[in-house]
């Protein structure tokens, strides 16, 4: 088990290295000079050239990459080009906010998705089933920015129930924090909820048609026990997979939601660092997102083993 985790972690390193290389290459081909951008109204060619030198931007790209990688190994992500702040604390400031959002989105998705999927599977072919399918696909199809705007319009502008957006740390005002998280978490969670509902339904249907379920039924176990204790457990694997696939993307995928609701999280950091050409921050953010995708995948593998005792990792 531990060996398996270790092997997975080591095995992921080349991919992560490739990710860092890709993002590095990408930042360097982005048009627009960070020095000029940083100088803004005060830009002039001499000053910009000096600044580029100061920031080490005129060194060969491979040298820059090597230096960055060297720092990374020592846990040093460099300093932001924009305000000279160290990158790690910036990341640590933003990460909890986005994790909170992702957590609530996932919670909402599970609460909506799993029951909907189960109901649809049990009433296969009924109007309920079709209704769930349409709702689930709608959840997947509705653009985050549209849903976000609609919710703001309805709940904040029309009904005036919820402040339109912003963020308050939970330790400052828990009630307000939760209230403010509601709409963005729902916005972010709908797509996941849809996917979960679809996969729960399909995978449950498949499991229900298998022998051991029939056996359990034949043994006279109540339908409820059969479904919730036996079938659902076995149907969970594909569902966990799809959650894993989407959860990894939630961190970076919250870009739009955070934008619409003015939440100062990871997604905003991504967009801002692209627009400001803040390479060190962008590199770190993408690296962290990639690591989170990767870690979630490992976690999903471990969950398989927990759900299905037949799966063993040597």
């Amino acid at each position: 088990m531990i060996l398996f985790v270790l092997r997975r972690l080591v095995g992921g390193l080349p991919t992560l290295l490739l990710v860092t290389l890709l993002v590095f290459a990408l930042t360097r081909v982005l048009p627009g000079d960070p020095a000029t951008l940083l100088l803004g109204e005060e830009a002039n060619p001499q000053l910009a050239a000096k600044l580029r030198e100061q920031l080490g931007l005129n060194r060969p790209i491979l040298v820059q990459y090597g230096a960055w990688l060297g720092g990374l190994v020592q846990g040093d992500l460099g300093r932001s080009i924009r305000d000279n702040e160290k990158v790690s604390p910036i990341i640590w400031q933003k990460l909890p906010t986005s994790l909170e959002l992702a957590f609530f989105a996932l919670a909402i998705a599970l609460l909506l998705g799993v029951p909907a999927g189960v109901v649809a599977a049990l009433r296969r072919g009924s109007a309920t089933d079709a209704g769930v399918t349409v709702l689930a696909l709608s959840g997947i199809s509705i653009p985050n920015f549209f849903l976000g705007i609609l919710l703001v319009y309805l709940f904040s502008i029309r009904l005036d129930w919820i402040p339109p957006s912003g963020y308050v740390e939970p330790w400052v005002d828990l009630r307000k924090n939760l209230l403010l998280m509601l709409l963005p978490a729902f916005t972010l969670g709908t797509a996941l909820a849809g996917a979960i509902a679809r996969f729960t339904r399909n995978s449950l249907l498949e499991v229900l048609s298998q022998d051991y379920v029939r056996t359990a039924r034949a043994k006279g176990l109540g339908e409820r026990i059969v479904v919730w204790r036996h079938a659902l457990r076995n149907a969970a694997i594909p569902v966990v997979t799809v959650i894993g696939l989407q959860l990894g993307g939630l961190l970076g995928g919250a870009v739009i939601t955070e934008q619409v609701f003015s939440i100062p999280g990871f997604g905003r950091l991504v967009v801002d660092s692209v627009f400001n050409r803040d390479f060190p921050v962008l590199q770190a953010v993408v690296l962290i997102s990639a690591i989170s995708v990767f870690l979630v995948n490992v976690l999903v593998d471990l969950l398989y083993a927990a759900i299905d005792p037949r799966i063993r990792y040597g």
Partner: protein
Amino acid sequence: MTRTLRSFLSNRLALAGLVMVLLLALGAVLAPWLTHYSPTQTDFTGLQQAPSSKHLLGTDELGRDIFSRVLFGARVSLVAGLISVSIALVLGGLIGLVAGFYGGWLDNLLMRLTDAMLAFPFLVLAIALAAVLGPSLQNTLIAIGIVTTPVFARLVRGQALAERPRDYVQAAVALGGGDLRILLRHLLPNITGPLIVQVSLSTAAAVLAEATLSFLGLGIQPPTPSWGSMLNAARGYLAYAPWMAIFPGLAIFLAVLAFNLIGDGLRDALDPRTKK
């Protein structure tokens, strides 16, 4: 195939999706005949008028007819969906075929590369690519196409790997058929089913991606109507002119939903396990 088709056609939701896509395509093609307003004709004396018999869906911040813009916007969205997915299909298909067929270090390299790309948050990659290429319809399509490529590469590789040991491929190789002919003649037809499903799902994602990039101002350039940029322009006027946001938003939603319905129906139709 006919059985699949029948199964698909018996799926009412999938059929509804197909009808929606056809209606959308019809609307896009017939746009000039469906409305007498030009999508770009401004009217500075009639800004942000509410929907009325004169302007079915109201007017926008420059006095343009929103109905006309939504219709013409369908062109951009459909083209964006289809072209960028074609790019991804061709590119990803080639990568997948080559990786799956030849295996070895080439497979390893290509798959690590797709892994790396998949590890990027989709939007981040799309934003960065759109920024690198510069904003225009064409570049937006390329950016979305590139971002969508890994999914197809993965899918095709997996299928190719599964087909490779089969007799007919081995026989073709033994008979000395050229590499390309084997690849195309024998492998492709066998992976069409899953590909079609993926194409429709990816088209949905691509329509969404175009709208998102345009929403961020990185996509289609004004005054060409794009649903995403219409929504972006509408954001500030939510309290004063909600129709500016609601109609293009609904259009995006319905278009994406339609492609997802088709994809979902196709998947069911092709999947032997979900047969009744």
